[in-house]
């Protein structure tokens, strides 16, 4: 398929990005990712467990040469922490494509957009390609774009909530104003939510909890894969106009 997701001049075949958190085991995580067909996975940066050396390593299960690791600043509440995390991530193995996420509230996990904006500016100047988790505010999205963001990643709903896209209008407004990759991040609950995101014209979706915590993660991974493909095809096919009255599907001429 020629229709590729392009972020920071890199091409990806799948428009589904998946997270690697919340799985029961590394094996389950690796299998779900394979079934999802994702080319990009988000990963977190945390301390190495120095007392338990036998703890399995993510890189032993998901090969960073085959799948693009997208280091994420999940859990950071200040610009300082986010910058520190991504600079360390870059040092692990030269990762420049990163996902910035600066949270502002421990309960609703909404992004702190002031800190996010500040961090985007600094990271862009340091040569990072920053995919930015943000709220669904078109004005803020514009500011991020002007600060050098490589992708705009508005939430559908609070992280892990499974509520689906709560403000389609805002997503459509952001779509119309930007040529940057627009990727729905956070809050999706089921495969059809991903289809809706793609039909709104988004370039991709990022899903973690909806797959990892589904009763059958492997089947849900496949469902999301298919849903993203369906939504993208539907968007590119050009939907019909909405009308109030009925319009018969069979010709009225020749009725007996």
């Amino acid at each position, binding site marked *: 398929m020629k229709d590729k997701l392009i972020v920071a001049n890199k091409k990806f075949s799948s428009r589904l990005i998946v997270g690697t958190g919340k799985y029961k085991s590394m094996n389950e995580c690796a299998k779900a990712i394979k079934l999802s067909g994702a080319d990009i996975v988000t*990963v977190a940066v945390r301390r190495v467990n*120095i007392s338990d050396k036998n703890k399995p390593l993510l890189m032993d299960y998901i090969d960073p040469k085959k799948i693009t690791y997208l280091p994420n600043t999940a859990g950071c509440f200040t610009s300082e922490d986010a910058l520190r995390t991504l600079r360390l*991530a870059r040092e692990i193995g030269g990762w420049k494509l990163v996902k910035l996420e600066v949270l502002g509230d421990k309960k609703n996990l909404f992004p702190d957009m002031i800190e996010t904006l500040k961090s985007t500016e600094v990271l862009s100047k340091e040569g990072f390609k920053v995919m930015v988790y943000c709220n669904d505010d078109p004005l803020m999205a514009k500011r991020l774009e002007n600060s050098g963001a490589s992708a705009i990643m508005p939430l559908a709903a609070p992280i892990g909530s499974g509520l689906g896209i709560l403000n389609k209008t805002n997503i459509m407004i952001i779509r119309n104003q930007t040529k940057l990759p627009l990727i729905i991040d956070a809050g999706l609950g089921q495969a059809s939510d991903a289809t809706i995101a793609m039909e709104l014209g988004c370039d991709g979706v990022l899903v973690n909890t909806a797959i990892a915590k589904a009763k059958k993660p492997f089947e849900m991974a496949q469902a999301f894969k298919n849903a993203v493909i369906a939504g993208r095809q539907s968007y590119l096919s050009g939907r019909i106009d909405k009308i109030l009255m009925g319009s018969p599907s069979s010709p009225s001429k020749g009725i007996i």
Partner: protein
Amino acid sequence: MKKLKKIKIKINGKIKTIIDKLTLYELINDLKIPIAKVAIELNKEIINKKEIKKIKLENNDVIEIVHFIGGG
């Protein structure tokens, strides 16, 4: 035989006693940490992994060693 001097460092939040003049490389090797898969911070400064053989640890050094784990 002269007794080796010991120093205290903090690594990933835990205090550890090591022998004086140990290099960062030796410490990481002793801990069996795969260097290629981690990033290292010494006293809040990111260390170029190519330089770790030259860095001698000092008393009260604070080291953070991080890697990638599953996340959203």
